[in-house]
């Protein structure tokens, strides 16, 4: 493990990634710093590498070269057990397709990160899940299955699941991509609200309007960062 003293919250250094069989790398020498409590948007066309960058920052994908630092620790070099712990305690993932388990209720989906294999959850964990459902505006929907919820409600459950363990960083991959504009606006409001509560948000989006609502907007093209824009009030 490598530690630096004055390090940003999350930092990507010279990160490159090429998928097997691909002619060109999907990420090429990417450098990026994310500060604690920041709301960062990653914008770009399909295939520009934005989702791969998000997955690399969240340790779902390991880069071929370069490093990802989390509070000064290179998470590419820690043991897999430690990365699993990061994903369950510190990082949170939200996807475009919600990815809820259809046979579990909203509450059980939120409890999934607590289960860890054999399904036992404590009363405190159950209460934390209920609180998180309430926080995303889904009180009363605890026992509903995903199929009976609207797209926006499903995405809220996914966000509640992501944050139920008190994660510090929310990685959102096109969280509004499958929603209508009204529901998308509501999800963006929720993300801003969570950000104000101290959660660092890193969001991939196709939608420039939503991306511009972030404190910083990173534009990607062909696996490289080609532009960084700050919000007017930053």
């Amino acid at each position, binding site marked *: 493990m490598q530690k630096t003293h004055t390090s940003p919250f999350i930092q990507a250094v010279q990160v490159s990634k090429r998928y097997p069989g691909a002619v060109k790398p999907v990420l090429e020498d990417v450098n990026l710093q994310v500060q604690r409590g920041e709301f960062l948007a990653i914008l770009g066309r399909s295939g520009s590498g934005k989702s791969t960058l998000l997955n690399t920052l969240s340790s779902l*994908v390991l880069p071929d070269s370069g490093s990802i630092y989390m509070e000064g620790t290179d998470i590419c070099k820690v043991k897999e057990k430690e990365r699993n712990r990061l994903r369950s305690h510190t990082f949170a993932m939200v996807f475009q397709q919600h990815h809820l388990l259809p046979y579990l209720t909203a509450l059980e989906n939120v409890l999934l990160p607590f289960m860890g294999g054999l399904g036992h959850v404590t009363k405190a964990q159950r209460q934390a899940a209920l609180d998180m459902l309430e926080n995303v505006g889904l009180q009363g929907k605890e026992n509903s299955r995903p199929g009976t919820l609207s797209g926006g409600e499903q995405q809220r459950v996914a966000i509640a699941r992501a944050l139920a363990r008190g994660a510090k960083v929310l990685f959102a991959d096109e969280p509004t991509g499958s929603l209508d504009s009204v529901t998308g606006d509501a999800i963006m409001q929720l993300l801003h609200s969570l950000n104000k509560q101290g959660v660092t948000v890193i969001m991939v989006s196709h939608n420039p309007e939503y991306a511009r609502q972030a404190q910083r907007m990173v534009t990607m093209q062909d696996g490289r960062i080609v532009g960084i824009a700050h919000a007017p009030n930053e």
Partner: protein
Amino acid sequence: MPLRANVAIIAPKLIATAKIHGKASAVVGVDWQEELALKGYWEVHGEFPSPTATHDALVGASLAQSLGIAPGQTIQVQGQDFTVRGVLLPTGSDDDAVLFAPLAAVQTMAGKQDQATFLEVAALCSGCPIEDIVLQLQEALPGTEVKALRQVAESRMYAVHFAQDLAFYVSLVILVTALAMIIMSMLSSVNERKKEIGIMRAVGFSRSSVFAVFVSEALGIGALAGLLGYVAGCFLATYVLASLHLTEGPVQLFSLQHLLATTALVAGAAALAAAFPAWKASLVEPADSLAAV
């Protein structure tokens, strides 16, 4: 060289069926003197009949139990009265299920005067040339089937072992087939549930946790299958035994120990078969499986 000197006992028997206490039973007519000399291992509750008795009987253990017959009792068989002198202690052979009566009485009862179903011949010597004795008896009694008891026993043991081996290998084939089906089914399940595995991994499940999820699922399904299989097997066996009239009255087949052993065995086998698919599941990369959706 004639081997007549080696023949020590010739015990004729006539087998008939008759109703005793309203139930069809096997009755074996014997020459008491020869029979008791031949069956020196018999033990009896009560006493053995006198060699010259004409209407004394011995009852096998299981027949006596099912008919409620005790020593000293008089029973009527096809209109003839017999005094039960003793009840044989269990021998583990066919003797347990029959009534032994004097040969002459059974011949009269069956209308087969001076006839016997078979003769048991004992050669009381060490290292007797049994095959030669059998050969000489066959020559002396043309048209009669002569078999050494050892051959009969070997033949029966061969049949029993063959049936046991057959049952074992059929069970083995069924077990291997079932395990192969579990492996295929679980592999298919892993493929279908890649997204779910990806979600688990994305929210922090370790590879060993994913492995545990699949193995524990197989364990639970296996335990349920073992439980239901045992209960269904008990019902089926009871029905088959009843329909074949192989037993007298209801048979207690259910055993808690067997139930637990079956459940544990099937659950263990299912978990073992699920190990490879579960290992494959644990290798699923979350980013790949979620991106593929």
